[in-house]
């Protein structure tokens, strides 16, 4: 399985990328841990998480092809 992960705003600088693919992750919690391992500095930032363009709170299972985005606080206008 493969999960597409998107980063936005300041998190593009923290991670050095806009998009990354992760394999063998079964849940959002699992994915967060993987990302914190890869980018330890991310724990110092506030962000929300969306799954397939819907904001989510808490845990959620992941399936092949899902798109997860890490979203800093919005700042439009």
């Amino acid at each position, binding site marked *: 399985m493969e999960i597409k992960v998107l980063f*936005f*705003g*300041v998190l593009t600088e923290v991670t050095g990328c806009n998009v990354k693919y992760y394999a063998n992750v079964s849940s959002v919690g699992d994915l967060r841990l993987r990302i914190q391992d890869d980018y330890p500095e991310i724990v110092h930032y506030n962000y929300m998480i969306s799954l397939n*363009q819907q904001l989510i709170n808490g845990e959620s299972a992941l399936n092949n092809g899902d798109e997860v985005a890490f979203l*800093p606080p*919005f*700042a*439009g206008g």
Partner: protein
Amino acid sequence: MSDYLVNGPVNPELITRQISFCDEKNDSGGISVFIGRVRADKTDSKTVVAIDYSAYEEMVNSVAASIKEDIMLEFSDVRSVKLFHSIGNVKAGEISLFVLVEAGHRRQAIDACSMTVELIKEKLPVWKRELYDNDSHEWKRQ
């Protein structure tokens, strides 16, 4: 590209066109608009020269549509809601947000326009990076 996003500044011609060609049925007594511009803020001996906007484009589509639905549900007199937000580089003094609301009467046009702007600030997945005249930059939270 999302229907709600504009590359670079919102062009004054787009605004003129939207105002000119709205309300073709001539049943809107009130048309309220909001125009957001990039300010040349001065802080710590540096000045904002531009803002670089970025967005989660696919999510902007669904969120903007949801904002419009919420406004139409909240304000029964509102006929239509239009919104355009910049992505990319917008210089100080240029326009980065345009909202237009048509309603039967002024009160709901004004209130709905105001609420639309607040919902955009709260919910639209857009980020801004202020660019300064000393070549530094900063991601802004609001």
